């Protein structure tokens, strides 16, 4: 009871005298970062996911080769979800003598549940507007009109029924991933399908049941359905939607969580320094309390209570900052995304409390345990302090705390341990580098004179403290470098993946005879000379001696891929945006029959390196061995192929050509001319998809900037903690030097040298760390190849020298001004 009262009073005094200010700020910052990032990641992820939802035209969908039973729809509705149905199948339409292969999609009246279906009444209006699709009419993509030579409003024969094609489809949310799909889309209402007589028991139709609603309800329905899912049916949630958007989403969220982890790590480093200093400053008091008969429990209790108070205050403060930040965020996010944001919950406040407890527990416990064994004889001999304490505890407790944090945040033991290993390796390298640099200073001490000599000597005198400070400053500078230079580099590299000239139009069905003329057409009009690649249609019949049976694949996607005709191509060299992951690309001009397969489809269809593939190309057998597996960056919007063969194998086959190019918006008028000159060529506008991918990259980038701002704050806190860590030692040294007659000016010069050199070391270490981090993030997280910007090294070193020099001088300026007697008397 009295301990409680004493602890409370002491805590108030700590707060008043700023003893625990830094510790409080560090823990609060960690808590604020965690709560804000929780809100942020949650909201951004949801907002991004909702954009992906647009691409499903729903929050999730069930896909099956048979009509989903009505009970499923009833169940979905009973869970408060809204539903819609679609069915799609290839068919042939007629107009006069002309026939055209189309991809029919028949939808229910509620379609789409997410995203927009835009259409226009004329072929000239490229934007269109949202309008309901009524029974008794069909809509179609622009090229259907071009290929049939009809205008909107003309009736065409669809099976046994005549329907007018009234509007031009401009944006269809769930158009599907294959941009090279040859058949244009024909959209109509499901009610009109029976009259066409097109769908019979043997038809190859893909049915979808679309659902939308609250995220938990959608997920619960997915789980309910999973137990009843028949063979071949597939549950599609946003994570399965468009691969190019999913890649952008994954990169964005991974980057966010890396940034968030960094904030807590930095705040933890600051807390480690501050907690150590705080507890060490309690040693004198502990010795006196010991003499007065306090037990070790009382000692630990008194300091522990105060730390507990700090944890509580930090959790409240951090939680408040987090709530405030998320309110500001709602503003920002609201502007970025068209999505409705979920209301804030109290859960992040719990996270804030857990974070501060973890941070303070892990950092303060080891020195607290040491404090317990303060020898009371310290009151007689000042040099006596607590025994060094077990290194196992000193290192183990913070590490265990860190591990607990990672496991908690990542929700996965293995991932947490791996993240911890990464952090440890980084810290170890930083510490070793710092210690090495400090050692290198040794010989310099005897060179030079005056302020230089004393400043360097002060650093060399405490090599471990200097190393710790170097790592502390280094982490702070690292955060700054990452926030400024590296962020700009990375974002530039990322956005460079979708540069302004990214192709937004595909041309397919180019006849061999037209190829040269078309290349000339594009070049003459300043549209560049994009690669025009051969495309050969073929059906996959055998994999490694086994006949391909689409029905034998479990997933609808694999079934679809296996039954569809492949677009094959041939080339001597892989495309620049392809990367061979396994095997080797063939030597140019090779005569052997070989294939290179995209990794994703190889996995889906069960194709392995060395397998012999057989395609049926226009009735002829074409066989070759898989000698490489390629990763394809689909988001480059270049023409790419799942399967590429050697020219020797495929160049003799009947081919058409495809290409993609960028058409600036103001030159859309070229398209009619192109269609006139090359009537057989089909133009596909992918501008809308490209726009979506680009918007997502921009949003993730801005989200990242926001989280990195916390990293900046954490970096500053680490710098402050590192300065403070040496303040007590400094104070005594300065006081002694002043009594020995050192002038203020010479002291300032000495301190300036000392902190500048410290900053130089830290900046060098930080720049190296930033280079490594940037490399890791771009290669492993973003999948970009990183070009190291070596300007980081001089920038870090000089910036560190100036920054730490100024910060250090500001921090110790009071020590130089205070009369030395005050310091000496307090000691």
């Amino acid at each position, binding site marked *: 009871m009295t301990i409680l009262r*004493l602890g409370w009073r002491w805590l108030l005094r700590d707060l008043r005298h700023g003893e625990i200010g830094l510790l409080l700020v560090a823990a609060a910052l960690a808590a604020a970062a965690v709560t804000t990032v929780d809100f942020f990641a949650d909201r951004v992820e949801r907002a991004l996911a909702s954009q992906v939802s647009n691409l499903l035209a729903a929050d999730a969908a069930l896909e099956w080769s048979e009509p989903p039973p009505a009970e499923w729809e009833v169940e979905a509705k009973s869970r408060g979800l809204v539903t819609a149905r679609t069915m799609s199948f290839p068919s042939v339409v007629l107009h006069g003598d002309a026939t055209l292969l189309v991809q029919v999609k028949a939808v229910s009246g509620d379609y789409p549940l997410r995203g927009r279906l835009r259409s226009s009444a004329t072929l000239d209006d490229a934007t269109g507007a949202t309008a309901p699709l009524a029974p008794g009419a069909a809509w179609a993509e622009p090229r259907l009109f071009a290929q049939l030579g009809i205008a909107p409003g003309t009736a065409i024969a669809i099976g046994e029924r005549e329907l007018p094609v009234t509007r031009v489809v401009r944006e269809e949310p769930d158009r599907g991933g294959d941009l090279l799909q040859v058949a244009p889309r024909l959209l109509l209402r499901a009610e009109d399908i029976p009259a066409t007589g097109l769908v019979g028991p043997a038809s190859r139709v893909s049915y979808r049941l679309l659902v939308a609603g609250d995220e938990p309800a959608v997920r619960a329905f997915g789980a309910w359905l999973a137990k009843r899912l028949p063979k071949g049916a597939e549950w599609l949630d946003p994570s399965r939607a468009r691969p190019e958007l999913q890649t952008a989403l994954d990169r964005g969220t991974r980057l966010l969580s890396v940034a968030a982890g960094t904030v807590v790590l930095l705040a933890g480093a600051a807390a480690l320094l501050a907690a150590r200093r705080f507890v060490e400053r309690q040693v004198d008091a502990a010795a006196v309390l010991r003499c*007065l*008969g306090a037990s070790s429990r009382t000692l630990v209790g008194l300091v522990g209570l105060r730390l507990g108070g700090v944890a509580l205050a930090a959790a409240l403060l951090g939680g408040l900052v987090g709530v405030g930040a998320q309110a500001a965020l709602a503003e920002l996010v609201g502007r970025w995304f068209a999505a409705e944001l979920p209301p804030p919950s109290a859960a992040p406040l719990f996270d804030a409390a857990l974070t501060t407890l973890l941070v303070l527990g892990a950092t303060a416990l080891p020195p607290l345990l040491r404090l317990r064994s303060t*020898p009371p004889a310290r009151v007689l001999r000042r040099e006596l302090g607590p025994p060094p304490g077990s290194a196992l505890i000193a290192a183990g407790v913070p590490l265990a705390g860190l591990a607990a944090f990672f496991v908690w945040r990542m929700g996965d033991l293995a991932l947490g341990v791996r993240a911890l290993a990464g952090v440890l390796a980084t810290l170890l390298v930083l510490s070793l580098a710092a210690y090495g640099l400090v050692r290198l200073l040794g010989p310099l001490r005897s060179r030079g004179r005056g302020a230089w000599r004393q400043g360097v000597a002060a650093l060399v005198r405490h090599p471990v403290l200097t190393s710790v400070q170097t790592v502390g400053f280094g982490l702070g500078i690292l955060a700054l470098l990452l926030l400024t230079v590296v962020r700009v580099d990375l974002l530039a590299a990322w956005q460079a993946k979708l540069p302004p000239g990214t192709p937004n139009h595909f041309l397919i069905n180019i006849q061999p005879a037209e190829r040269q003329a078309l290349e000339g057409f594009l070049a003459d009009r300043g549209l560049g000379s994009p690669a025009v690649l051969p495309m050969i249609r073929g059906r996959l019949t055998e994999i490694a001696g086994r006949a391909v049976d689409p029905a034998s694949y479990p997933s609808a996607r694999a079934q679809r891929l296996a039954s569809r005709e492949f677009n094959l191509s041939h080339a001597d060299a892989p495309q620049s945006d392809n990367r061979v992951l396994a095997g080797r690309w063939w030597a140019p001009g090779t005569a052997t029959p070989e294939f290179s397969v995209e990794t994703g489809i190889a996995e889906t269809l069960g194709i392995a390196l060395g397998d012999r593939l057989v395609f049926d190309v226009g009735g002829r057998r074409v066989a070759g061995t898989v000698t490489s597996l390629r990763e394809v960056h689909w988001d480059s919007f270049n023409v790419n192929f799942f399967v590429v063969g050697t020219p020797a194998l495929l160049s003799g086959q009947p081919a058409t050509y495809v290409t993609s190019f960028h058409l600036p918006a103001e030159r859309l008028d070229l398209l009619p001319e192109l269609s006139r000159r090359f009537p057989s060529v089909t133009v596909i506008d992918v501008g809308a998809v490209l726009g979506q991918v680009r918007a997502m990259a921009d949003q993730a980038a801005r989200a990242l900037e926001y989280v990195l701002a916390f990293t900046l704050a954490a970096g500053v806190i680490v710098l402050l903690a590192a300065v403070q860590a040496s303040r007590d030692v400094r104070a005594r040294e300065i006081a002694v030097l002043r009594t020995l007659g050192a002038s203020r000016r010479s002291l300032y010069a000495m301190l300036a040298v000392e902190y500048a050199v410290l900053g130089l070391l830290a900046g060098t270490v930080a720049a190296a760390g930033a280079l490594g981090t940037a490399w890791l993030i771009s290669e492993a997280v973003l999948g970009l190849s990183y070009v190291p910007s070596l300007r980081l090294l001089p920038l870090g070193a000089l910036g560190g020298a100036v920054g730490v020099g100024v910060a250090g001088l500001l921090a110790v300026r009071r020590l130089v001004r205070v009369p030395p007697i005050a310091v000496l008397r307090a000691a």
Partner: protein
Amino acid sequence: MTPHSTTVVRAAGLGKRLRGPEGELRILEGLDLEVMPGDAVSIRGASGSGKSTLLGLLAGLDEASDGEVFLFGHALSPLDEDERAALRAGQVGFVFQSFHLLAGMSALENVMLPLELGGVGDARERASALLERVGLMPRRHHLPSQLSGGEQQRVAIARAFATAPRVLFADEPTGNLDTVTGGRIADVLLELRAETGAALVLVTHDQQLADRCDRRLVLEDGRLGELG
């Protein structure tokens, strides 16, 4: 009851060895001492003769290499750090050469500290009375850094007597002060001791101060010798 239970502090064959850079250092060797209730004992000795070391051993702040110390009749060597602290609580007072007030606490709070640790209810009143007694009531809310050396030592004395201890250990209580101030501090210390009847073990090399005690001992070559 053992015959020694009446002693406040007793040392028997006490020895302290330390490992120094040039082999073992024998600071105390075969030292005997008995302090009875109410005794005022002064121990003088040259600098480095081991006075502070002896005081630390007698108060249970440190562990002996040989022999035994009995505090209030309890042998100290079997006790651990916490048990020794419990034995001291409220029964032992200290005054040190470098005052050892808690820097963050006011004069009053420093005096209240041992009372609060002992769970005494009217700590504030008793501490105030003691500060009044040493003449520092007007400065009670000042921090140690805002007090002169003599004032700090008076606060330390008030704190030492706060729990009405049975024995007071003082290590050079006037060592950091000028002669006049030191003399006044010695007056306060000895008066309070007389009023409370606490035993006093005082270590100093100040002949005048040592002479104000009933029993005067000298520490030489690790042993105590009695002076008339």
